[in-house]
């Protein structure tokens, strides 16, 4: 068959374009709207004194992100986010550990700067950023912060 290479090539282009098209469409649908995931339960730790200026903290739900699991603990004083940390992080393999080790401090500073879960995330650590965002949002929701 002399047309064989041509047919394979046509199929390759079609398959390539098909997956790319599907990907861009589903990516547009799936990108999380900030604050949309308010239903997650979270553990809250009431602060010493109740009231507007009280220091409270909450741990968001554990988020699976394919290469591992993490949860985010947030501490607020009134409506101000004073601290964010990742109390538990489990990953499948060392590379993910390295990526998380680099990304989590960056994510933390993003949150402290934004004073909310509206963060850009860290490129090169997309999955970690998404899980971080979701868990953080759940924790903030539990504390009824914004």
């Amino acid at each position, binding site marked *: *068959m002399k*047309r*064989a290479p041509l*047919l*394979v*090539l*046509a*199929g*390759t*282009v*079609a*398959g*390539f*374009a*098909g*997956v*790319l098209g599907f*990907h861009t469409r589903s990516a547009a649908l799936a990108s999380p709207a900030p604050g949309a995931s308010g239903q997650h339960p979270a553990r809250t730790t009431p602060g010493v004194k109740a009231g507007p200026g009280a220091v409270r903290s909450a741990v968001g739900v554990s988020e699976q*992100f*394919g*290469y591992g699991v993490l949860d985010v603990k947030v501490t607020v004083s009134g409506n101000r986010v004073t601290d964010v940390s990742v109390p538990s992080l489990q990953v*499948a*393999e*060392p*590379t993910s550990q*390295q*990526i998380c080790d680099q990304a989590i401090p960056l994510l933390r500073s993003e949150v402290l700067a934004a004073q909310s879960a509206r963060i850009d995330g*860290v*490129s*090169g*650590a*997309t*999955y970690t950023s998404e899980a971080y965002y979701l868990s953080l949002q759940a924790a903030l929701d539990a504390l009824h912060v914004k």
Partner: protein
Amino acid sequence: MNARQASPARSARVPGRQAARRPAGSGSPAPRSGYAGAALVVAGVGLGATTALTITAETAGQLAAPGGLATFGGNLTGMVGTYLALMMVLLVSRIPFIERVLGQDGLLRWHRRLAPWPISLLIAHAVLITAGYAQAARTGPWHEAGTLLRSYPDMLTATVGLALICLAGSISVRAIRRRVRREIWWNVHLFIYLALAISFAHVIVLGPSFVGHPLTQVVWSAAWAGTAGLVLTYRVGLPVLRSFRHRLRVAEVRTEGPGVVTVLCHGRQVDRLAVSGGQFFFWRFLTRGMWWQAHPYTLSELPRPPYLRLTVKGVGDHSSALARLKPGTRVAIEGPYGVFTRHSQRHPRAALIAAGIGVTSVRALLEDLPRGTRPVVVLRAARREDLVLGTEIADLVKRRGGQLHELTGDRTEASIDQHSLRRLVPDIKDRDVYVCGPEGFVTEIVALARWLGVPDEAIHHEAYAL
């Protein structure tokens, strides 16, 4: 088209062999090339989708990160290499569709042509991933290789898998293959299945295209499970079933010529095998020392219930051992395979050209050819006594109103060139040309036929490998 119209008429004409009851199996016509084209497009779609999946799993940030480029290259070579490996497995999975479109000869050629790609891509995958991860972790590649093996899930088995693939690949390199016994080569080759099975897990749990993408996980797993199912069905299940059904046993072994033996097997419901003349089976003789190897031998005669006959020249260890087979030995079969049959015919007439033990295929094919074929048969051999089954062939040719030319002597005396071929078969352009014999002979004659103006679709050939 020709073949399809010709088949009912022909079946009715053969008395006493219950040919009309033959079920449509491998003996039926090749599918139209439209299906083959569709299959090629589907294969292409898979390749394109695999490539795109790798690219969409990547972000600009990951590429820019240390080692990002190498890691991406590693992912891409891994995905494409694995996909091509899947294609190679499918090619030899004995799916009737592929067998009919390409024939064993053709699909093995594709399998061989494709082989260097998945192997080198998978090696590149291992090297690039190690390099990329090492750069990201700021360590040396050797240290990183150790980390990969020790602390990544399913990486140890994947590495063993790659080693097995490299082993099977290197043993198939022509220079090495020639020095290795066929039985060893064959069994090492089977390790590829094991290698692919144990490497599967690391793709799913670590591959960026799969982690966190349940849809691609499902599609990929389904493709591999489906392939495994096809392999098990057509390479294991069906042959076992057929062997049990036909219960073949060796009935007689006799010497046909120098180093050539005929084995006659006796079985049940042999007429139910959909065999066309010129097709072959993989034969497994269940005796000590032979049960673990299956070899392809052509039937030298259409099934004559309750008998199947094969005629083999003793070149390898296995074919030499056939002479010592005892009557009553159980025989397992896999097949029939091959498109060296009347179903490939494009013209009403045919020329059959064979060398050496290739005459056995021609003998069976001749019996199966419609009477109006008026075949011209050209047989070439070094010595007169090497032309086995000579009287049978002469008889069949005579009954079909054809001509038989026997050329004996060494290559210079009895060579076939464009002049002699044109003289022996003046109307070769209007005939189907069937060529059977050793690889070199087949290549030579096919080139000659092309040169004499025979279109590719009218040239049918089957090369004998040792």
